[in-house]
């Protein structure tokens, strides 16, 4: 065996992946060849160092960390599966509906959405439809107030006759869904204004309702 072959098979020799015959040939060669012996020794030393590095380098994750990671996963993973957050004091059942609009980013004072960007939904007269308002936040918002102001002729199921309804609620970082079961009691339609207030900050969202 020559030095080039030893060099080409070095990895397999170190990893014990050569045949018995080839292993013996390499071992025999390095007995007589100082250069190849140095290379093999350096390769073995590197393997030892890499194994020692593995023993010393990885920080220990504690049992508490693993327990907490599992708990967070089941808590947040469940939210990801179901995607709906119950609002305190709002008793509607979760129902299929249209995901309407999403607001991303940090919660801060912003100008209202320009008229051209206001989404539109269509309701059939006297038929209840569920519309999902999706609020995305990059942070948890505890003790926020959500106020919905309805135009004449549009009502929320369970709040008949009321045009302004407010809820105290908390949002978690991520997507928070408010399902609104709307009923059009007249063909006039109009604009729904939803305002989310947290501390001194607030953000308003508009939704145009057409009735057919």
């Amino acid at each position, binding site marked *: 065996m020559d030095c080039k072959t030893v060099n080409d098979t070095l*990895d397999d020799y170190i990893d014990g992946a050569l045949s018995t015959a080839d292993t013996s040939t390499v071992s025999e060669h390095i007995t007589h060849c100082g*250069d190849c012996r*140095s*290379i093999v*020794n*350096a*390769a073995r*030393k*590197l*393997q030892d*160092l*890499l*194994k*020692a*590095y*593995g*023993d*010393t*380098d*990885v*920080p*220990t*994750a504690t049992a508490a*960390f*693993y327990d907490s*990671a*599992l*708990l*967070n*996963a*089941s808590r*947040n*993973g*469940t939210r*990801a*599966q179901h995607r709906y957050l119950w609002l305190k004091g709002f008793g509607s059942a979760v129902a299929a509906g249209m995901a309407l609009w999403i607001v991303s980013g940090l919660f801060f004072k912003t100008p209202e959405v320009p008229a051209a960007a206001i989404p539109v939904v269509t309701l059939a007269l006297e038929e209840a439809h569920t519309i999902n308002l999706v609020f995305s936040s990059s942070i948890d918002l505890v003790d926020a107030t959500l106020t919905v102001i309805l135009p004449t002729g549009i009502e929320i199921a369970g709040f008949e006759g009321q045009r302004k309804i407010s809820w105290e609620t908390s949002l978690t970082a991520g997507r928070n869904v408010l399902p609104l079961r709307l009923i059009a009691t007249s063909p006039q339609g109009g604009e729904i204004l939803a305002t989310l207030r947290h501390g001194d900050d607030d953000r308003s969202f508009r939704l145009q309702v057409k009735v057919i």
Partner: protein
Amino acid sequence: MSGAGINQSEVFERVLRPHMERLYRLAFRLTRNKSEAEDLFQDVLTKTFGQLDDLLTVRDAGSWLNRVLYNRFIDNKRRYARQRLVTVAEANLPQQSIEALAGNSDPVRDIERLENIMRLKSALDLLSDEHRTVILLHDTEGYKLSEIQKLTGDPIGTIKSRLHRARARLRELLQESGTFSGS
């Protein structure tokens, strides 16, 4: 899987527990940073909970989890180019590692070994991400070539070639730093 009487959290924990330590080590090997490893690990567990039904049907849960983590790491790396700077800035041995070596009765040899490991760490920083990943997984964490292939999706020949080049480059760097003597 969903339904009355089945506690998903308990099932999830039973399936995950045997693989968590290896998964965490992989997260650390890839990110080279404790807090990023913890974030990546948590992220993958949360994602996996939402895919529990899939996890329960795979034959090799450990490989499946590793693959999810590896893909998540690659996605994050593409999005956040700053990651490499963070890992290089924190490339110091933690205090507890020095204590772990102090059990040897030869303090001079301990110090020399520690210095060699620090030089190795610096040399690893100079490798490309692909070379560093394959050598750490194979030579440090003991992953077989077939396991690395399942993780990365790269052909075995490519992985072997990267490993060969990574080892050669590390030997070169460690010789330059005086860790290895000779040719």
